[in-house]
């Protein structure tokens, strides 16, 4: 069983399908959810073998406490984009968020969502934080943030690139990639849990993630691979 950050949903589904085609005898279940929740649950003995976190800090923490059976490996770097459902976001910049016509801006909660934290950093670096802050609404996670924008209740939002390329969202408006210079890198990492120490399948799947087909899928769904830069 794999616990994967919600933003991996589409990419991971495709990777798992491919993996199963290659290894028909193996059974792989993926559960998507919030990385923080998985972190807590693994401490309390949740039966997850692999943990793909949206923030590499969580698996690192687990490893430090001896709950991991492998090193923490980065598998992707998340990027954030400015997105809108009601206007052409490709022409927008962070500065245009100060426009009074943009009444509400959705970001994920910077307190616990990694994408939200990067969004806040980017807004601060762009120097619009003070003007924009009263207009902010906070989503529980990046998906909810997207829904705020998608339903038209927020005119714009900062979401993950991986979500913005989703056909459901791409059909409306467009997105503008936010320079990764404006925020600290959002490293995503995975770890094999202690529970799966004797589970060869876990290791095989981890290895598969590092392989070429998997990497291609990741890129297709808007992830930037460690050491590479965003393909636009």
């Amino acid at each position, binding site marked *: 069983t794999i616990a994967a950050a919600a933003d991996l949903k589409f990419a991971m589904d495709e990777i798992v399908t491919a993996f199963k085609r290659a290894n028909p005898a193996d059974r792989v279940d993926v559960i998507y959810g919030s990385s923080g929740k998985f972190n807590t649950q693994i401490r309390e003995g949740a039966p997850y073998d692999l943990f793909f976190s949206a923030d590499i800090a969580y698996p690192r923490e687990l490893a430090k406490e001896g709950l991991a059976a492998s090193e923490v490996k980065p598998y992707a770097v998340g990027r954030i984009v400015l997105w809108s459902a009601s206007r052409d976001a490709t022409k927008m910049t962070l500065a245009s968020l100060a426009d009074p016509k943009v009444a*509400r801006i959705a970001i994920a*909660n910077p307190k616990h969502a990694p994408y939200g934290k990067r969004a806040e950093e980017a807004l601060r670096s762009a120097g619009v934080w003070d003007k924009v802050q009263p207009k902010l609404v906070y989503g529980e996670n990046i998906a*909810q943030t997207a829904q705020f924008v998608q339903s038209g209740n927020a005119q714009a939002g900062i979401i993950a690139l991986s979500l913005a390329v989703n056909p459901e969202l791409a059909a409306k408006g467009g997105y503008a990639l936010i320079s990764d210079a404006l925020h600290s890198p959002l490293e995503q990492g995975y770890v094999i849990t202690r529970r799966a120490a004797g589970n060869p399948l876990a290791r095989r799947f981890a290895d598969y993630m590092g392989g070429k087909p998997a990497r291609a899928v990741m890129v297709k769904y808007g992830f930037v691979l460690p050491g590479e830069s965003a393909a636009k």
Partner: protein
Amino acid sequence: MFLSEGDLGAIVLTLELAGIVTAILLVLGTPIAWWLARTKSWLKGPLGAVVALPLVLPPSVLGFYLLLAMGPHGPVGHFTQWLGIGTLPFTFWGLVVASVFYSLPFMVQPVQNAFETIGDRPLEVAATLRASPIDTFFTVVLPLALPGFLTASILTFAHTVGEFGVVLMIGGNIPDETRVVSVQIYDHVEALAYGHAHRLSAVMLAFSFLVLLTLYAWRPNPKKH
């Protein structure tokens, strides 16, 4: 300080929300409960069931549908925009509307039960003593249904305090406007700020305990009929 300023703001906001929702539901739920308790129409069953339906959906999913409905493209949103009050999501009143919708069964069901057990006789007696139906309702039915109202209010109040799925979705977690305590505690937990979460939870529990205890103390002793 023991609690941060944000926590205090959230507490005040929560109590306001729960209080207002409970008050609105008392006004709104009572006639529905009355109708359900007294009607002989075949609609009683279906409508009774519909009242309980909001409970069946997961709160954040319900929140999502409400967000669509109340958004600028939804039917409720069209209506509120036509009224000139803009759209409701991300406002305190949006929270109120959503919570009212979600907590409706907690108000209606116990009150309906209380109404049903009163029976016809007290109403008949009141009528022979010149009380009009509305008069009777306030002077006989309401007092006799008091335990039902208390139960309903307790469930509604507590549930509104604890709800956060709908609230987060509709409210957008805006400090001092829609960031209620449940969301605040949730944030603390998600941010792994457990100490903070524990403190706030303890305060909420203690406070709610007192509120509930007061409600209980009011509760009249069971009556023999």
